[in-house]
């Protein structure tokens, strides 16, 4: 595994600053900045369809980032992430509907509320490991979802709640073209925050717990504190993403955020690469685009010879679900380090091209 712990020969660093730099070369930094600037033109260049896909990728990437802090960096596990996402969505809708607080402030507030609830559900994590922790987080998923379907004052019960469009100081943003910038801003801030978190003392403590919790404890790291903190952080980003989602869709429903969505979040970080920030974004893009590409294929197949031969008809949609499952399995078998690893290999290949060996 080509992790940061394995430094190739000839690659010397002479200061801690050089060791923890985000961009190893000036070119990579410029490329990242240019990428962001290019993205700023996306609303003018993309079709409505691709714009909505990009927004979805942006929103889910923030939630997946939170999960990656928990799973990839702290070595815990959660299959209740979707519930915190939904909690953020309902909280932001509730705050902006019922209090004189504009949506601009409701979104971070929803993140904070989700983080607090995440801390509560993180408490058992301090004592539980492995399968037991999985079950504890599963409980979080069901408890929260049940709460949403019953608390009519908060979430509207079984009826979907409505959320206000994004507004700031009396100016309301309408439509995907404007909302794209909101998501882009949150995405950038979240990714910069988390990248920097991992360069701090607290970030290193999380990684130490993942690598060997006993050694970490012996070195004086407070396991309870950091494990709970990881849950709080994961819930915070899930809440932010959920709030963004609420004000994007303008309707919040507790459907589609069951355990299967939590597992989809896990799939995002596994496909992208656990413990890789760049990979989180790639994995999210992959998971969001996968059903879409299957949709294109099934639309293309519709009415074709294959469709008639297998008499697929309405079952063509099931083909999509099957393909998604198969691709995830294939990924786990052939690309266990995720897209981030593959990306690194492609980069190395081109760096040395044509003299790779």
């Amino acid at each position, binding site marked *: 595994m080509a992790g940061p712990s394995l430094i190739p020969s000839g690659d010397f660093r002479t200061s801690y600053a050089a060791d923890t730099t985000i961009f190893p070369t000036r070119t990579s930094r410029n490329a990242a900045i240019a990428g962001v600037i290019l993205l700023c033109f996306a609303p003018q260049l993309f079709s*409505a369809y691709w714009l909505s896909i990009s927004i979805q990728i942006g929103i889910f990437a923030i939630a997946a980032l939170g999960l990656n802090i928990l799973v990839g960096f702290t070595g815990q596990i959660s299959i209740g992430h979707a519930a915190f996402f939904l909690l953020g969505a309902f909280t932001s809708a509730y705050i902006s509907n019922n209090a004189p607080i504009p949506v601009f402030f409701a979104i971070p507030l929803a993140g904070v509320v989700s983080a607090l609830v995440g801390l509560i559900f993180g408490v058992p994590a301090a004592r539980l490991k492995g399968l037991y922790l999985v079950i504890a987080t599963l409980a979080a998923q069901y408890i929260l979802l049940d709460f949403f379907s019953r608390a009519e004052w908060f979430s509207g019960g079984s009826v979907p709640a409505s959320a206000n469009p994004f507004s700031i100081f009396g100016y309301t943003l309408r439509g995907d073209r404007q909302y794209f910038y909101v998501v882009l801003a949150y995405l950038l801030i979240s990714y910069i925050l988390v990248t920097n978190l991992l360069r701090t003392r607290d970030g290193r403590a999380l990684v130490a717990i993942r690598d060997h919790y006993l050694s970490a404890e012996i070195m004086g790291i407070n396991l309870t504190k950091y494990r709970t903190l990881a849950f709080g952080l994961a819930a915070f980003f899930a809440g932010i993403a959920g709030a963004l989602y609420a004000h994007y869709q303008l309707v919040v429903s507790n459907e*589609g955020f069951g355990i299967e969505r939590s597992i989809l979040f896990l799939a995002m970080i596994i496909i992208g690469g656990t413990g890789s920030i760049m990979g989180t974004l790639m994995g999210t893009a992959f998971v969001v685009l996968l059903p879409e590409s299957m949709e294109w294929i099934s639309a*293309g197949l519709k009415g074709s010879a294959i469709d008639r031969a297998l008499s697929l008809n309405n079952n063509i949609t099931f083909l999509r679900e099957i393909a998604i499952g198969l691709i995830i399995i294939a990924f786990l078998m052939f690309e266990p380090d995720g897209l981030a690893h593959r990306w690194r290999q492609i980069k190395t290949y081109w760096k040395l091209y044509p003299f790779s060996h």
Partner: protein
Amino acid sequence: MTMKSLLSTVLLALLIGSASAAAQAQIAIGHLADYSGGTSDVGTPYGQAVADTFAWVNKNGGVGGKQLNVDTNDYGYQVPRAIALYKKWSAPDTRVAAIMGWGTADTEALTGFLAEDKIPDISASYAAALSDPEGTSGKAKPAPYNFFYGPTYSDAMRAMLTWAAEDWKAKGKPGKPKFVHMGANHPYPNAPKAAGEAIAADLGFEVLPPLVFALAPGDYSAQCLSLKSSGANYAYLGNTAASNISVLKACKAAGVDVQVLGNVWGMDENAAKTAGDAADGVIFPLRTGVAWNGNAPGMKTVMEISKMSDPTGKVYRPVHYVAAVCSALYLKEALDWAVKNGGATGENVAKGFYQKKDWVPAGMEGVCNPSTWTEKDHRGTLKVDLYRSKILGPTDGDLNDLMAKGTIKLEKVKTVELPRKPEWFGW
């Protein structure tokens, strides 16, 4: 998976995706179908009927010479997916003239957007909240662009309870009858709950606390035991057929003696066949004048439409299929009016619904019940035909035979003509 094969898959997908996006001078219609979600048991025949009807319309010259371009999507009964599709259908370059909708949760979630974008939605949800175009009832938000064919869930419930009160009297049993609402905690089964419990109380029923069971089929023995111990006499099953079958079977096994009242989506011929004798005696509203193989002039049209996906003409179509043909043909005629009066925009299509009184689509005489929509009231009909399912033997074999032999029978019990009361509006 190597990089190369991954890339080629993506490229292939892109090619196919771009090739299939070409359509001009057509009337675009969005179609939300549930083929894989919680209500897919009834969503499949309904969606098939909508697709068949529009294919038949296109074969016969389309609407005003224009072909209908129907974008059918399986959204798995999930609100977020419905909203994502709606965004596509309301975008300026891919805007549709109308939507054939489906569930209660997604239709209610879309109501505000539909009004803002002026796109009519002919839903398969008959929630009373969708029948109040101006919000004058004070019970629901305004839903000016929502339409549906059939009595509201609440009105169907009122009719069934009216029948139940008479049934109780006719049987001459002592004491107050007990009524219980059963269904998932979901907008669709919940839609007529308040209305049902209110009229039940008025009619002298004792209203028991509601029992919850999920939209998907499962083991509902526990609910049946609660039903038994509660001593309920009349139980309303608010879910769709497949889930209701689970309850019927479990309750049969538990020996529960209760008269079951089903929602319009709660019973059909397929369900009766699957449930067998457990489905015997279920009361439910039928939205059309006749069921499949019924004797009405309009059935000829329905048979022709059915041949679009079944050239043999041998497939038995359940009640939901026939009802969907009606819904789709109402939209077709509203589109006809719109094309002649300024073009097929959503606003004109909605106006098209207000043009006729006691409206039956051409060629559907005796099948679709006469309906009237006005700017102030979207309750198309208040007539509720109550039927009872009769199972007279083992239900193995082909559904066509079973129906022909009368092993499964839908027997008319009563037609309830509800008054158009303002206090029954919107809930």
